[in-house]
């Protein structure tokens, strides 16, 4: 089966899973009428972000066409982008004392 993920802006390098996606699943990433197919390398829960391009460490994560964070590790296509490999510029709730 083909799973679905949504990009919110053409600049985005991540897409959000619109349903839980199994490891190795085929994902149709859509933005409006544009689509792209990728394969996940791990399970993706509903609402989580999947990298749809190779994202190098220290480069920005784009969602809504804006920078929402910086990659703290290299992120490969089909991987989850979340707190283990993304740092916010304005502080994150899981780091004590937050503000950078």
């Amino acid at each position, binding site marked *: 089966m083909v799973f*679905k993920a*949504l990009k*919110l802006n053409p600049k985005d390098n991540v897409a*959000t*899973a*619109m349903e839980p996606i199994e490891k190795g699943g085929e994902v*149709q990433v*859509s933005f*409006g*009428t544009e689509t792209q197919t990728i394969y996940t390398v791990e399970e993706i*829960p*509903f*609402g*989580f*972000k999947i990298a749809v391009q190779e994202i190098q460490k220290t480069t920005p*994560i784009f*969602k*809504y066409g*804006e*920078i*929402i*964070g910086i990659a703290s590790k290299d992120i490969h296509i089909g991987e989850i*982008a*979340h*707190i283990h490999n*993304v*740092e*916010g*510029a*304005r*502080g*994150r*709730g*899981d780091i004590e*004392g*937050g*503000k950078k």
Partner: protein
Amino acid sequence: MDNQFLGYLRPNGMAGARNYVLVLPVNRSLNFIASNLARMLNNYKHFEIPADGGRPQKDRLTIARTMVGLINNPNVGGILLLAVKPKFGYKDMSSDYFTDAAEQSGKPWRSVILSECGGSYNMLGEALRVGRELSLEVSKFRRQPCGLNQLSVAVKCGMSDPTSGLIGNPTVGYMFDRVVNAGGSAFFSETTEIIGAEQILSKRGATPEIAQALIDAAYYWEEKAKSTGEDIRAINPIPSNIAAGLTTLEEKSLGAISKSGTTPIQGVLQYGEQPNGKGLYFVDAWMSSLSLPLCFTACGASIVMYQMGGGDMADTYPMMPAINPTIVSPWMYVTGNKHTYKKSPDNIDYDSSAALDGQATLEEVGEGLLNHILAIASGTLTKMETYNYQEQLEVLMEGPFL
């Protein structure tokens, strides 16, 4: 129908979805009479003044703005003002301040003054007599074809979940763009929710002053929270956000902001302040369901909506966060979460989740929302409008108490 609705055209050029008579006590001691008039007279709505004494001027001005805003809201066809004496009270809230506002609105209005009636018992009778006359006069207004440029909408989001930033809010944002690009007005707010994305939001300010005002507004509330020991930045995103996939504060705030669409922000308004022009406005105000909808109504929103995620709603016939906290403006619930909608189709007006399932594009659900709003503006009731209930509302006041 082609992006038209059948609305009540008002002297200021905006169109209302409803045609109420508003009874407004100018002095707090008259809340009792106002509330009873609204009960005894058909098609009447009323506002009860919050405690106005013992407050700094800034808070009195907020109350006054809210009242003037209600007078000018397009859903109000006529106004019945109640006052103790002419020219009585604080200068910025005296009777003549509001009679001037009613006169400037160009709408039919009357005033009933206790000192000129021979006391409160006579006042009740006189207000009934005058109120019935006013009612008949307002009933002569007719709906006529109006365009999106005469519509004003507002949104608050809450009970956020992953669908909020993914579909729910962007759907409202799409609709906002449609209304604003056609020449109408739209309002959004919840200053604490833009913290983390205020730099990004400020780039949409139509002028450098507006850009700075957005940043200043976020900073003000953040510092105020800190002074009481709450560090909004450090505690966000909260654990439930992280468990739901939100990674950074910027992402959370951008998800909130997506409800405003993409058009430039024409100004930063205070609570209850009416803008000078049309377009998209940010209102610097508190997010509460019992405060912000009233604010939007005073700013001029004909229709106000609550975009909801899911949250801990009961599975069987849940109650909604608020019932008609807008007094005169139709209040609607919208969601991008199909499970939320299924729990409460009797209370939720629009479900945009088809875009989440891939059964529709964002544009399609956005157009669907717009069409639904046009129907509401033309007379279809919102689900919540079937209730006859007045919530206890809170005008946003900062104090100190004097």
